[in-house]
């Protein structure tokens, strides 16, 4: 069954068309740069300059820089401008106008810290000794909902606008909310995605947990030591099949299902057996009326922390059984780091690029794959997956929040 046939013969939720993709990543602005980087098998993680970090425990991150063409409104944050750049690219690819006020369109975004990077300068003055005067305007874009709202204002969106702030699962959950709203007919088009920038708070925080690898992260490698933090944004234009068809839009792929769960186990450590994320995956499969056998490759959360990767491996074994040893698996975080609240969005775009290029991108990282996991991790170069129809993408977050989506190929 192709993704298109699945859409036509659905028995559960309607599949939603993906007609535009946009990204800002450690490889630069745009999805072309993202795919070129991902396919190269080289990591975008290394020394960075976003802020002074000599006193931090680690020195690496994946920095996206500031795309020249993304000037946002006054006082917008870097995260806002990342979001604008990704949205502009996605809307252009979808063939939608810049101003969307005539469309039934909503925004579904994920973020973990919004404009925290800019706010830190204000708070450094206010909380420092001695206290220094600081301009309150530097807090204008602080709120976590700012990137999504900035996109809405820039493009004249008049439909629902919401921001999920569930740490590292935010954008995946936001895409699930968009999927539900489109299926319900609340809107015809959704701009779904996420944006986060590097900031001292999260960089120091994850280092305090000893969750950051001093080197570039090494997902699923035997000697992995933690994640690498990254920054950027990604946007997917989602629309009902009827809307895409009426516009004559090219369907790049499909969002066919979403699922979520909670471990209710620990604030930072995942359920070691991966039972929670397994429930989210099973919910996503049910939502899509698919079985695990229909999945052709997986873009896992794959942070590179010992606990996360072990839990995910257990989940994968529980869901896919004996197929696991030959199921192509990748982690975009090995290439671009962890985009926190935007991780699910950039990984969904990366997954769509895998479909569009007919190959699963490799997972950079030093060392041998952990032999205890018996995984088919794609390494070195892209792995051709001709005829691939469906892919799974997963994200796990603080507090045991789990989210999964299933994407379908547009090649019907």
């Amino acid at each position, binding site marked *: 069954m192709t993704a298109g046939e699945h859409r036509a013969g659905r028995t559960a939720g309607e599949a939603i068309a993906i007609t535009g993709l946009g990204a800002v990543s450690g490889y630069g602005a745009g999805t072309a740069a993202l795919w070129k980087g991902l396919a190269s098998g080289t990591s975008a993680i290394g020394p960075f300059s976003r802020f002074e970090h000599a006193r931090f425990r680690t020195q690496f991150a994946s920095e996206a820089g500031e795309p020249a063409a993304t000037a946002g409104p006054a006082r917008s944050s870097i995260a806002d401008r990342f979001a604008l750049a990704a949205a502009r690219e996605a809307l252009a690819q979808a063939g939608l106008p810049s101003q969307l*006020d005539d469309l039934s369109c909503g925004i579904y975004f994920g973020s973990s810290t919004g404009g925290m990077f800019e706010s*830190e300068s204000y708070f450094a003055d206010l909380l420092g000794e001695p206290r220094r005067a600081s301009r309150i305007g530097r807090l*204008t874009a602080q709120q976590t909902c700012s990137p999504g709202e900035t996109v809405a204002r820039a493009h004249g969106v008049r439909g629902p606008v919401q921001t999920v*702030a*569930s740490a590292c699962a935010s954008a995946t959950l936001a895409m699930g909310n968009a999927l539900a709203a489109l299926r319900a007919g609340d809107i015809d088009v959704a701009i779904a995605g996420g944006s986060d920038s590097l900031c001292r*708070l999260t960089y120091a*925080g994850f280092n305090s947990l000893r969750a950051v690898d001093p080197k570039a992260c090494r997902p699923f490698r035997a000697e992995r030591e933690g994640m690498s933090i990254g920054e950027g944004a990604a946007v997917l234009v989602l629309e009902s099949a009827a809307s895409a068809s009426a516009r004559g839009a090219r369907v790049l792929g499909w969002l066919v299902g979403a699922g979520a769960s909670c471990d209710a186990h620990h*604030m930072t450590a995942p359920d070691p057996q991966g039972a929670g994320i397994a429930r989210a995956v099973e919910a996503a499969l049910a939502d899509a009326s698919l079985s695990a056998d229909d999945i052709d490759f997986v873009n896992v959360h794959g942070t590179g922390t010992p606990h996360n990767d072990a839990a995910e491996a257990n989940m994968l074994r529980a869901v896919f059984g004996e197929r696991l040893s030959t199921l192509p698996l990748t982690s975009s975080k090995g290439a671009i780091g962890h985009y926190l609240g935007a991780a699910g969005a950039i990984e969904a775009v990366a997954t769509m690029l895998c479909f569009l290029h007919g190959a699963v991108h490799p997972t950079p990282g030093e060392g041998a794959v952990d032999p205890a996991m018996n995984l088919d991790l794609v390494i070195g170069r892209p792995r051709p997956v001709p005829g691939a129809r469906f892919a799974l993408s997963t994200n796990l977050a603080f*507090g*045991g929040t789990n989210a999964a989506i299933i994407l379908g190929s547009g090649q019907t």
Partner: protein
Amino acid sequence: MRSVSAEVVVTGLGVLGAFGAGRRALLEGLRAGVPRLREVDRGAGFHRPGGARLAALADLSELGNLVPAALSRRMSPPARMAVAAMQLALRDAGLPEGTDHTSTGIVTGTAFGPAWVTEQLLRQILGQGPEQASPALFTESVASASAAQMAMMIRARGPNQTLTQREASDLLALGEAARWIRDGKAGRVLVGIVEESIPILHALLDRFQALARADRFGPERARPFDRHRNGFTAAEGAVVVVLESAAVAEARGAQPICRLLAHGAAFDPSASAHGWGNGAPPLARALRRFLDRNGVTPAGIDLIVSGASGSRLGDRLEALTLSAAWESRPLPPVVAPKGTTGEYGGGFLAAGLLAAAGERPGVTAGFGAVDPELGLAPWTGGELSPPRLTLLTALASGGAAAWTLVARPDRA
């Protein structure tokens, strides 16, 4: 398999705020019509002379009876309040300790997240150095910490997410939760709206000129819709709402408090990043579309519970939107509970659900004189039949808007 359009009922309500614990305490406070305000600690020197001094700070005297100290000490202040409100809500719903919550979902909404924890963490990182960052504080600094702590307390393993969209977070969270039930993704969902008010946040809101101040027209207090309103009163607390499908509630013999009929949302792109828009006509059209889609005419609405807070421009937008949606015909009775509860979504939401359930609301505290530009006079007491259909309306600075239609449980 999805079961579409299950009816959603409210079966429990847990309230913690300035009026103490329990919905009875809130109702008595609303009916008394006098906000319970206290002096904010200005000792840290964040406040400017002549600025706002008061906030509706939560009465936490019951907290120790609701959250065991061994668990409470690991939680952020908003997580503590959310867990306490959850315990009250579960009792109110007749769900005893030991109830199986394996498939229970949780959605929380917050405008500012864990403010105190974030302040302390920033003090460590920016003042003492990044190596001083506390992992315990970092873990609790995420906006979703309350949702996670709630889930861990009762082992709720269904979907879990946190929404943040300023003043519209409350109704957006309620809407997503209801959708999960309608889509068959959870049979029961706990909706937690939580906010904390700390001195630095209070001072910053005052610097943005958002807070009510004493002036020649009266003391420092919010005056929703009043011609001399000059800002809102900061507030804190937590409200947890138990939502269930009508079938689940009926099966266990639960008595619904009210029924959630429909949820709508829109955006006003004329809003600035830190202020209110002036797009009343398009918001009114969106509100009318929402009503039309659900087969409701303005004449069919018996009561409007407004999120108007005393904000000069926010209340103006609300009043003009309602007036345009009703095409200048008389509005049904309007109440704005934030005059009593202060500005936090939980108080508004609880007051709205109770009013929709037929509990006699309080008058709009602080209102004294009609603003000639708005022409809106809130209900001032007197005869008021229990409403069959109530509209809850929450507009947000930054542009978001959300609406909910609520019916009495016995509506035919």
